[in-house]
């Protein structure tokens, strides 16, 4: 099978918080239409990597999206170029209704009717969100907020979706539901970079995986080979 073209290409990426270097020159790539997982324990630098792609932290090295270096691209323009994120901690707008959250997600679009249609589609996918469309997002349960955060991220019609620990702190039944959704997205052709501590479920739906620890990549390979590496899995499940 020919390798699909690269959508996101990161090389020698370092992330800085003031004088602290949190990510020490990592390289990774996400091919179009694939789901790539970034595994790793707390503090490994996973969220920092996501933030670097979004442009919200100070970095060095290069982040290329569709062949274009993003070094001088603002946060907003990255979204407009097709990068969208469901961030760590979900960060739904708790003072706005579910519907308003989705409308803001579509803030860069001008096709009103299509936006409406997309919102209705999400309400069919997650009837629970539809039932609560006028409710403040802050009153939703953690799982509902996560679904909303992902749906909101997709409202901008991104080329690539960044998901930072979508299963964190959720009940097993909700976790399966979230992973089913991600799998469905992938089948529909979405390119996904997934950050997870839930290694088993993440590897099941991924094509390729990286293991990040203390700011460096310690292992990488096709998701299936990750799954077969018992020693690695023992370590990973121990973490998750």
């Amino acid at each position, binding site marked *: 099978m020919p390798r699909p073209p690269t959508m996101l290409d990161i090389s020698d990426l370092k992330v800085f918080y003031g004088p602290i270097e949190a990510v020490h020159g990592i390289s990774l790539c996400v091919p179009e239409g694939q789901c790539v997982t970034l595994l790793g324990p707390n503090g490994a630098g996973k969220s920092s990597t996501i933030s670097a792609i979004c442009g919200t932290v100070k970095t060095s090295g290069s982040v290329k999206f569709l062949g274009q270096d993003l070094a001088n691209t603002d*946060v*907003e323009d990255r979204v407009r170029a097709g990068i969208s*994120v469901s961030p760590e901690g979900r960060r739904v*707008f708790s003072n706005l209704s579910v519907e*308003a959250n989705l409308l803001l997600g579509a803030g860069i679009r001008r096709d009103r009717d299509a936006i409406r249609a997309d919102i209705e589609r999400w309400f069919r996918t997650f009837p629970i969100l539809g039932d609560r469309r006028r409710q403040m997002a802050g009153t939703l*349960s953690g799982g509902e907020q996560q679904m909303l955060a992902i749906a909101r991220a997709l409202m901008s019609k991104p080329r690539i979706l960044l998901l930072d620990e979508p299963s964190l702190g959720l009940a097993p039944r909700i976790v399966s539901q979230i992973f089913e959704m991600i799998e469905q997205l992938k089948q529909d052709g979405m390119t996904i970079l997934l950050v997870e501590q839930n290694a088993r479920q993440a590897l099941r739906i991924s094509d390729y995986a990286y293991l990040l620890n203390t700011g460096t990549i310690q292992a990488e390979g096709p998701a299936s080979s990750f799954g077969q590496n018992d020693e690695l899995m023992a370590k990973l499940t121990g973490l998750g």
Partner: protein
Amino acid sequence: MEYILQQFINALSFGAEYALLALGLAIVFSVMGLVNFAHGEVIAIGGYTMVAFATLVTANPWIIILGSVVAAALTSVLLERVAFRPVRYADPTTGLLTAFGVSIVLQNLFLLFVSPRPIAVTSLYFLDVPVDLFGIRISSLQLFETLATLVVIVALTLFLKRTIWGLAMQGASLDFQMVRLMGIRANRVFALAFLISGLLAGLACIFIMARRGSVDPHLGFNPVLMAFVACVVGGFGSLPGAVLGGFLLGIVQVAMLVLLPQEYGGMKDAFVFGIIALILVWRPNGILSPPVEKGDKV
């Protein structure tokens, strides 16, 4: 009975003016966490523009009014651009000091290049005529002021709830970075907040000038102080809080005026602020202080 109604309308119109002023502060604070003490100077710019228009351009009061509102709005946007943008993501103290700095610089510019003395503008007196309303005599200005504030509240509510920019501003009050991560331009959100704030300052300026009939370099001091108090009482950052705080301040002021015996009249403000202090003992963050959590529920 008539007396009570009269005082009620007084309280309402005072409150309306404070609400208008407080909204101007609150809208900027809600998106950028900045208490813009230069808001008063934006009002003064509106006043000086009236002078300039009345003496140099036209006697038509509507054009004078329009000119002053536009000038206030543009000034506000300009201040964001040159003074507040560089400290946008700095800590609140830096922003506060910047606002004080801007306020002082503008006041001194008025002193140096215009005049330290009040300059009269008579073009707006026509707004202030006595009218009979249900048998009581009130000033038309009070009526206009109350109505204008109600219109502003309705318009602002519709804007915030019905437009994407309104939603973005509400979202920004909670998590600005997340709004940027929706692809919505931070620069536009900030500019818009200052534009609205400037329009509100311009509107307030009309009523202040119509009542006082003159402008001096310190025109904005008292209004911005009242706006600040109203915001503190209502809960800083909350727009409904600003409105509530404004009206409450108006009611308390008029109540003190009415209830205090003659010999305590000079202590009216002390009593007003005493009551305000009591409210803050009851609700230290203001009555409608917005929640601080960022909505991440685990």
